[in-house]
């Protein structure tokens, strides 16, 4: 079975631009979470979606938004890019049964974003 896939693998943008990152979960997984990993640090939680609804949001500004589609794939959008947005953006999927815990999260390879 294919794992979590993310596109693109690398991206270079300039300050003020907007970026869209894409994620396809493992087949059968209905939950997608997004994390930001700045160089030298652990990943930070941005969003979680389950059945196309936002179920959790981390401490990130409104410039960050996301959505989940009927096929459970997801997009992360970041507007008005800042230099500090340069990071590895990780997507994770899980079966995600609300009320019974999320279940184990499986991560994709990430999208490395560089903001100049």
């Amino acid at each position: 079975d294919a794992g979590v896939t993310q596109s693109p693998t690398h991206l270079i943008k300039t300050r003020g631009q907007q970026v869209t990152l894409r994620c396809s979960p493992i087949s059968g997984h209905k939950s997608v979470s997004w994390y930001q990993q700045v160089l030298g640090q652990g990943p930070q939680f941005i969003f979680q979606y389950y059945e196309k609804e936002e179920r959790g949001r981390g401490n990130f500004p409104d410039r960050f938004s996301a959505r989940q589609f009927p096929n459970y794939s997801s997009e992360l959008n970041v507007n008005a890019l800042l230099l500090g947005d340069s990071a590895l953006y990780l997507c994770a999927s899980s079966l995600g049964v609300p009320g019974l815990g999320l279940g184990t999260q499986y991560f994709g390879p990430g999208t490395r974003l560089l903001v100049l």
Partner: protein
Amino acid sequence: AQSVTQLDSQVPVFEEAPVELRCNYSSSVSVYLFWYVQYPNQGLQLLLKYLSGSTLVKGINGFEAEFNKSQTSFHLRKPSVHISDTAEYFCAVSEENQGGKLIFGQGTELSVKP
């Protein structure tokens, strides 16, 4: 507030030696605990997890971890490491009522030398 502390930022060790990577967490509710490994320029791979039951958890690649509720720790161990174990290791916690939110530690860089 929920937090995870990995007590060592770097752990150098010789091949075939044992290793322990330390992780402590703080939480006021029941938690699920995880260890992930990240090889250079790659995403995170799950090593092992504690959800409930036996406090000694075995994972892939010969790793194991022990959940100690009284000490709020979840240390990762391997009795004999290989060069290929060189990577960044992350401890993570998820609270029972927090759904999908994983809180990660800062990571421990394991460097295995021949």
